[in-house]
């Protein structure tokens, strides 16, 4: 475990990265396919894509890492009991993600207003409150969904006795990318439908 050789690092990393690749291509294809439609609803959609998917994966990674530690120290059993400890971790992530996506929403709206005189009409085809709510709802939901996947990944890794550091972060970030893109696209399309844009 302590000795670093090229072969050992490659052997540990490649299987997980192969799974990551499949999820990344799925996320990429979804982005590529929905981008034109999404740009009609909100022209600056690409501005928030990196931040949006990064927060989701990061926070699910935190849940995965914390739950793995709890499993190893015996504070949680394999059925995730006691539930109130699990719940405390999930509430913490819920609060962090709500704050982070609210901050992202405010920044995106501020940049949109700031860029409008330069780029011409780039306001979302609906109002800012709807844009803010779409970012917040999609972000928090994607984070919770990815975190639940992180939970089960933590249990699986714990049972198999592998090193959680080399499996959980890549898995949660890549699932977070996919779910982040899918949730924000669905939220914007839903708002677009409500306002008769698409």
């Amino acid at each position: 475990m302590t000795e670093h050789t090229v072969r050992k690092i490659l052997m540990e990393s490649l299987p997980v990265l192969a799974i990551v690749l499949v999820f990344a291509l799925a996320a990429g294809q979804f982005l590529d396919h929905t981008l034109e439609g999404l740009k009609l609803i909100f022209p600056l959609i690409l501005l928030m894509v990196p931040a949006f998917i990064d927060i989701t994966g990061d926070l699910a990674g935190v849940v995965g890492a914390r739950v793995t530690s709890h499993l190893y120290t015996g504070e949680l059993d394999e059925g995730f009991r006691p539930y109130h400890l699990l719940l405390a971790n999930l509430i913490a992530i819920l609060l962090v993600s709500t704050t982070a996506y609210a901050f992202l929403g405010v920044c995106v709206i501020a940049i949109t207003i700031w860029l409008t005189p330069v780029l011409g009409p780039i306001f979302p085809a609906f109002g800012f409150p709807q844009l803010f709510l779409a970012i917040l709802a999609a972000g928090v939901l994607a984070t919770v969904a990815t975190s639940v996947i992180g939970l089960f990944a933590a249990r699986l890794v714990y049972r198999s006795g592998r090193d959680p550091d080399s499996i959980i972060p890549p898995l949660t970030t890549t699932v977070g990318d996919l779910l982040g893109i899918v949730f924000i696209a669905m939220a914007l399309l839903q708002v677009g439908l409500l306002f008769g844009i698409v």
Partner: protein
Amino acid sequence: MGMANGRSHERTLIWRVYREAMPVLLFTVLAELFAGSLLLNLDVNFASLIGLFILIPGLMQLRGNISTSLAQRLGSGTHLGTISWKQGLNKPLRANIKAAFYLVIIMSVALGVGAWLVSLFFQITTPRSGLILQLSHFLIIALGTALLASIFQVTITVTVALLAHARGLDPDNITIPIVAAIGDIITIACLMVAIIVAITLIPPITIII
């Protein structure tokens, strides 16, 4: 009594996680918004390239996974005393750098081929007008972006991790947030360079449906 203690313990846990995660996350949001503005720019200049965006999550993942785990291994190495600023480019450090580059090469070639296959499939099932990217384009763009970005990333990761350790700081707490926040900015900037190289070397064919 026990219940009350349990509750206050959980409240402490919730606020501790919140306080520890929030500052880094807010800084990350700002850095990622800058990366997003580069992505907007990329779209304005290269919107006619069909399937280009299939590569984007994969390329951003690549830097994340490879330089984050490099940062983690360097952190462990400095804790164990096998790697340090004073020992310079010794055998364990060279093995880590070499492995990071091998991974980048293998994964970016796989990503390029995968993205080409996906774009080919969707161009057959749901054709679009625009500039068709060949396998060679996908390979040059994926490999070029990944290699160029990794040269910057690996240099920054190694320097930050070893300097943090030399200054008596814990590399585990410092390297990953710094590397993660600037990673996407470097990747998208390198992606623009790689696209220009690819379409200059091999002009893509225009398809009108």
